[in-house]
């Protein structure tokens, strides 16, 4: 049997957008290193529910500690940082993103690309769905003695964003966040500029949504998880609202639609996937320390992620969310509130079930990471619930974000292969196939889709 990936090519297959993405991120880190000399105030913030358009309107340089951590892990540097943090007293049980960041700080705050990460002028905590984020910034506040702005984002416990929730967040933006940004930058908010940024955000979001929707095609031209994490990089971080992002996503969409028209599968590190054997939905963030090996377990078996929840933590675009320039602050509030990890388990299960149906997936895999309770708490319950809703059996694997000690290649490979073989055995017996159509009449999960 041949492997489902056309390997053996001398050079790694790349499309122009891949190079463009790489250049965008390299430019971002280079820009951070110049921020001090360019007298740009520096704001540390987190990816989920970030307010990058607002920050860009003040022309500050945003730093995302989770992005530093995962980029360090992909460059095999996180283990040293984690050891450093544990030496200073942080327990093995503390989130490895936090320890990677604190370790990096202790070692001189040199970022993943080897360039310095500037110290913050403001710590902007724009998402409180993760309690660890708060503790993380408390530690950084002790270190830097800088301004802190905390935006309390209410938990969307019933799965519906109410007017009161939105008004509550907007009020905090007006009373807490914007004044703090005005204080550290010495300038007033230019609302027209914010609107212009949101227009561009919306354009890029439209293109990214089309990219993810392309995975409904057979074969899927993209891997919406392992490839998807590259796609979300610019829009989930500092590029939303920029012309660069608009260009990148238009280019990416063009390439993906061309692949789809040509009937090509996704590009993997070993070449184009030539045989799509299993279509999967994946829940949970990936492991970053062995990202390539992790991905290989799937593509070696011809498994493609056609949808994932991790690629929604910085915006649920495929499900309809768009920033709205006509209601700038309300739109930012909706963005913060609808963050995937701010949703309750029934809605998260429903989203997964909808993905299984809409993307005609053969199965779904939950990757449970030790570090992240926002993701992992309740995942076993979700496993059973999604199985109940779809009739499709789920797979369950465990490791961590950036702590290599918790990633076991043989164990994960064993579980994934077993799971896929289980799906194969079920498929061989058509009478056992899940009655996916039976769930078609259920109401779809309601999201705060803002119409212009």
């Amino acid at each position, binding site marked *: *049997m041949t*492997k489902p990936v056309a390997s053996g090519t001398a050079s790694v297959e790349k499309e122009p957008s891949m190079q463009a993405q790489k250049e965008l991120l390299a430019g971002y880190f280079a820009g951070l290193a110049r921020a001090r000399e360019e007298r740009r105030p520096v704001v540390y913030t987190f990816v989920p529910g970030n307010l990058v358009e607002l920050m860009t309107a003040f022309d500050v340089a945003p730093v995302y500690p989770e992005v530093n951590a995962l980029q360090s892990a992909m460059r095999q540097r996180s283990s040293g940082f984690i050891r450093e943090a544990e030496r200073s007293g942080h327990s093995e049980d503390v989130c490895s993103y936090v320890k990677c960041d604190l370790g990096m700080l202790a070692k001189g705050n040199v970022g993943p690309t080897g360039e310095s990460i500037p110290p913050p002028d403001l710590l902007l905590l724009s998402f409180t769905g993760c309690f660890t984020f708060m503790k993380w910034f408390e530690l950084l506040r002790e270190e830097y003695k800088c301004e802190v702005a905390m935006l309390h984002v209410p938990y969307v416990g019933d799965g519906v964003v109410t007017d009161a929730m939105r008004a509550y967040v907007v009020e905090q933006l007006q009373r807490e966040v914007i004044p703090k940004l005005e204080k550290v930058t010495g300038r007033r908010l230019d609302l027209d500029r914010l609107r212009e940024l949101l227009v561009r955000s919306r354009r890029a979001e439209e293109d990214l949504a089309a990219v993810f929707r392309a995975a409904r095609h057979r074969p899927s031209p993209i891997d919406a998880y392992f490839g998807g994490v590259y796609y979300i990089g610019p829009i989930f971080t500092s590029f939303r609202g920029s012309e660069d992002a608009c260009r990148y996503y238009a280019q990416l969409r063009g390439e993906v639609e061309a692949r789809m028209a040509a009937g090509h599968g996704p590009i993997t590190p070993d070449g184009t996937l030539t045989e799509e054997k299993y279509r999967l939905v994946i829940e949970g963030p990936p492991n970053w320390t062995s990202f390539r090996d992790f991905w290989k377990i799937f593509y070696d078996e011809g498994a493609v992620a056609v949808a994932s929840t991790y690629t929604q933590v910085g915006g649920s675009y495929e499900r309809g969310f768009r920033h709205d320039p006509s209601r700038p602050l309300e739109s930012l509030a909706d963005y913060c509130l609808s963050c995937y990890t701010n949703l309750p388990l029934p809605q998260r299960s429903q989203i997964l079930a909808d993905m299984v149906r809409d993307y005609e997936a053969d199965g779904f895999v939950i990757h449970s990471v030790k570090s992240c309770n926002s993701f992992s708490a309740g995942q*076993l319950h979700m496993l*059973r619930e999604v*199985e109940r809703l779809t009739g499709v*059996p789920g797979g*369950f694997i*465990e*490791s961590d974000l950036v702590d290599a000690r*918790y*990633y*076991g290649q*043989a*164990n994960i*490979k*064993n*579980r994934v*292969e*077993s*799971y896929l*073989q*289980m799906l194969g*055995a*079920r498929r061989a*017996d058509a009478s*056992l196939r899940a009655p996916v159509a039976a769930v078609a009449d259920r109401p779809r999960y309601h999201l705060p889709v803002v119409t212009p």
Partner: protein
Amino acid sequence: MKLHLGVDLGSTTSKAVLVDADERVVGRGITNTRANYDVAVEIARREALTDARLAQAVTLLGADAGSVTEAFWITADLLRLEALRRICRGAASALPGEGPRLAPAVDVILARIVDEAGSLFSAAARGRGSFFRDIVGARFHALAEEASTRAGLDFELVLGVYDRAILEAENQVIDAPFLDIFVAAVDRVGLEGARKDGAVAAGRAAARVELELVGFVGTGYGRARLPFPRDCIRSEILCHGLGAHAMLPRTRTVLDIGGQDTKAIQVDERGLVTSFQMNDRCAAGCGRYLGYIADELSLGLHELGPLALRSKRPSKITSTCTVFAGTEIRDLMSVGEKREDVLSGLHRAIITRAMSLLARSGGVFDELTFTGGVARNPAAVAALHEMVAAHYGPRVINVHHDSIYTGALGAALFAHRGVPADDLPDAKECHGCSA
């Protein structure tokens, strides 16, 4: 005769099962060689083929079937013992200094073991699941004490010769023709006249039967290392599910605690896996853990369970971490806990962990079949009965006496059902399994 082969490369033992066109088990082989997987597969496969051929003879043997079968395997073990003796001689002679005195002393020990082979390698000993290494090792150890005292040799030195030689002896593929072993076995039993002629004729007929391997599937912890094409490799989770169901068709839940991992598997009425969970990369609470405990207490693995069953007040043990197992035992014993109570607590901790995986996989349905090396431990089985009853109510719990072959049986069934003979890759691709 067309046969399908299943091979299960576990972390502790490698097993092979052959099924015929009606999915009847016709041959089994097992080895605990620690050599590379190619050698392990070859030894297990050859033993299964020999077993299948012997089974052909057995159908013609009538009343002598039992005695000839037992003598056959004793004869086969004697061949391995002869190989061990040769290797020991070489190893002892090569040692500088004591070599010339050591070699005859070791040879005397092995000659004693050859004399005792009839009882050492009896069907009862094989039935207990003891391997060549265990049987010979235990006896060598005992005899080496006497021999070293008598000859004024260092005990460790004598034992060292065995330790070096056994690995090589275990890894040797014994190449003697079936009929030669069979005839020697008939002589060993002491059959005479027409009974002897009849038995030898049965052996000749069996030797002539063409055993044709038309399909094979490999599984187990080491399956990625099997010299099989990708199409012929299945996950041990699927194989365990199917194998357990084939052995005990009412099986709906399978708990497998092997040397390296623990698996909770749910199967449907046809033995197809519907859900499973297994431990993460940490092997806490698996068979290897019990191995460490046994070493720590200087006990044989098989002694742990019966000792634990004597406990009246099991110790409370929270960790099943293999790394800390020794520390935990010493801590508890140092505060006066009895050995059997500590052991009972350890067995309960293992099953508590397994219960969590069972819950994750969907629960315990009737019937539950317990497989893997730990299923042979009576204290683990007792703890499982108790906890399943407490959490799920009354459930039938099975432990099949051949459960060690569950994965290999499932693999053989997959070979028969899943890989049609026409689609088999060229036999040359599979250098480890040409019949």
